[in-house]
């Protein structure tokens, strides 16, 4: 790439939303609905039309709180128990109380949900205790509908710019972001009164067992940029040791999906075709039983649907092969896997961070506010446990509306020209080299070390070795070479991945107990220790610039959890006869 001075643009806005997947578009939509005069910029690394976790739609809502099926109180109770009690209930309650209104709003936009003949929502039971799963057999067009609404409300959509750092004002509050174009290498400085980060999960942390870097469970664009940016801007990140690990179709590495097949009578079985878990809802405890079965003489594990009627299987295929991960069908076809006659071999995913499925992420309150004034966070990267797609919509809405209010009483903070110049130098450094190490090599090595040393069961000494290896790779960043803007995009992503790897090791070492089933299973601290560790852990950049962790008390519950129900998710294994 050229050695000339970089091309730089600067724009001003009221609200900058970073990430155009699920939460981001809804944040932008709700900010504009609250105040149409606001300037809202939606910055996206890919193209909003097809970006994020729901690029090809979604096959259902996993956490619909629909009157007649569940109350917000029941939902808060279930999520608290499923996460071993480590949740602030207020944001979960805020989600639950708006869940139904959001379903109706999405329905009004034209997104289709499963209804019975009377027009009522057809909610199904998958969770251990309550009933929360609402299928979307025609959910393939979610992004198209969101996009239409963004255009209608005149949100300024800026595609193919990757934000690399947030800007802080002189008093620490948020002041905007610096971004780099993924096709031209041009820089964009966005000055903003409020920033809403919606960059999704950290899905390129562990290496899939296939070894293919982009064969991840998450959309691989979601590589942890949001976590890294929040960290460097001074935000606190909660419970990152509570990894995301999911049960997936082996090799294909996408969901099978038990949430879809469960209500039809499908279930997770061992090699003998027998059930071994009471419930297919994804929790750390469920994953622990899944992992144990994989290791056992009864392994491996399969999704079993071959006992169902052909008409039922046809319906399952129609949903699974047109939504969310539609290439499932061609994967099965090539291997001759037919749901009618063959069980689907399952495996566990690589590790990642994802509040959508676990209890980790940037710490936020019930308004989606992070600990940095003016910085909001929603979706998979926010710490609202198990919030899934509908949680991304609801919490995105809260973020957009609260940010709109915040803008009324704030001016554009000053920005630091020196910081921006230094950021441009940092980002462009790989383009100034003729040879060296490629982003691919640095990413592969980082993620291979993540697998070798951080994948549960976690062992103290192994995690310390991981930290040494990550420090060595960090030095190697000075040798990284990018020959075009696309490689520069990957180079920037490697830095996020390495930051997340360091955070995963640091957070895991801090919590000296085991919790959340497989997600934080420490062989040398095997017991759950409620006396010392019934708390959040928060990770942040300390005053000395080093990664630091501390405990944060759990806010008093607003929904009491009876003693007898607290262990409900610890009894997921089917009892021996």
């Amino acid at each position: 790439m050229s050695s000339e001075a970089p091309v730089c643009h600067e724009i001003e806005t009221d609200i900058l939303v970073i990430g155009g997947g699920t939460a981001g578009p809804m944040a932008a939509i709700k900010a504009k609905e609250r105040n149409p005069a606001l300037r809202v910029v939606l910055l996206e690394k890919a193209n909003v039309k097809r970006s994020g976790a729901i690029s090809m739609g979604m096959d259902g809502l996993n956490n619909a709180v629909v009157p007649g099926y569940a109350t917000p109180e029941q939902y808060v109770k279930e999520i608290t128990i499923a996460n071993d009690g480590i949740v602030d209930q207020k944001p979960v309650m805020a989600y639950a109380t708006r869940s139904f209104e959001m379903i109706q709003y999405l329905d009004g936009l034209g997104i289709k949900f499963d209804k019975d003949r009377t027009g009522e929502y057809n909610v199904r039971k998958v969770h251990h205790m309550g009933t929360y799963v609402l299928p979307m057999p025609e959910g393939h067009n979610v992004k198209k509908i969101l996009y239409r609404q963004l255009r209608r409300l005149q949100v300024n959509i800026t595609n193919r710019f990757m934000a690399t750092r947030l800007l802080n004002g002189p008093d620490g509050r948020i002041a905007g972001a610096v971004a780099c174009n993924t096709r031209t290498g041009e820089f964009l400085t966005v000055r903003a009164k409020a920033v809403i980060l919606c960059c999704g999960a950290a899905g390129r942390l562990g290496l899939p067992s296939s070894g293919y870097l982009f064969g991840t469970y998450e959309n691989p664009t979601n590589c942890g940029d949001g976590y890294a940016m929040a960290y460097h801007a001074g935000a606190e990140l909660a419970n990152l040791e509570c990894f995301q690990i999911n049960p997936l179709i082996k090799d294909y590495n996408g969901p099978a999906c038990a949430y879809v097949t469960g209500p039809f009578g499908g279930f997770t079985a061992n090699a003998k075709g027998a059930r071994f878990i009471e419930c297919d809802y994804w929790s750390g405890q469920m994953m622990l039983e899944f992992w144990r079965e994989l290791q056992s003489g009864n392994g491996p594990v399969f999704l079993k649907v071959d006992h169902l009627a052909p008409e039922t299987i046809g319906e399952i295929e129609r949903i699974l092969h047109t939504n969310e991960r539609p290439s499932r069908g061609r994967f099965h076809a090539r291997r001759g896997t037919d749901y009618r006659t063959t069980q689907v071999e399952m495996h566990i995913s690589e590790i990642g961070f994802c509040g959508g499925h676990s209890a980790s992420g940037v710490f936020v309150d019930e308004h989606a506010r992070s600990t940095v004034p003016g910085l909001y966070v929603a979706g998979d990267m926010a710490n609202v446990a198990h919030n899934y797609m509908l949680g991304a919509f609801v919490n995105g809405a809260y973020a957009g509306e609260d940010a709109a209010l915040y803008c009324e009483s704030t001016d554009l903070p000053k920005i630091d020209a020196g910081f921006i110049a230094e950021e441009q130098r940092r980002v462009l450094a790989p383009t100034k080299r003729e040879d060296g190490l490629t982003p691919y090599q640095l990413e592969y090595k980082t993620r291979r070390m993540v697998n070798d040393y951080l994948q549960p069961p976690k062992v103290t000494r192994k995690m310390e070795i991981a930290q040494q290896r990550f420090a060595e790779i960090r030095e190697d960043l000075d040798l990284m070479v990018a020959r075009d803007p696309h490689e520069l995009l990957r180079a920037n992503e490697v830095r996020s991945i390495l930051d997340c790897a360091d955070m995963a090791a640091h957070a895991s070492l801090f919590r000296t107990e085991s919790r959340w089933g497989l997600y934080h299973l420490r062989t040398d601290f095997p017991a759950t220790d409620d006396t010392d560790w019934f708390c959040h852990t928060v990770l942040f950049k300390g005053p000395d610039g080093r990664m630091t962790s501390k405990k944060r008390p759990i806010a008093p519950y607003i929904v009491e959890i009876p003693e007898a129900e607290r262990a409900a998710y610890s009894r997921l294994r089917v009892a021996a006869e």
Partner: protein
Amino acid sequence: MPLANQATGVPVSVDPETCIAHKGCRVCVDVCPLDVLAIDAEKGVAFMKYDECWYCLPCEADCPTGAISVSIPYLLR
């Protein structure tokens, strides 16, 4: 360290007969989340430039002429 160029088989195929990139179409390039598709200026046809595919299918689904077919990357098949 010096760099090498290593060939690899990629999962996205484009039918040159039906691709209308030469008429200015950029749909597949626009929608790919991983930004791995590009246009071969000489041939006027889209192609997969980087082996970084999530086999997610927007390129295939949104192509106006059905010129694209995505297979599962070999390492995963």
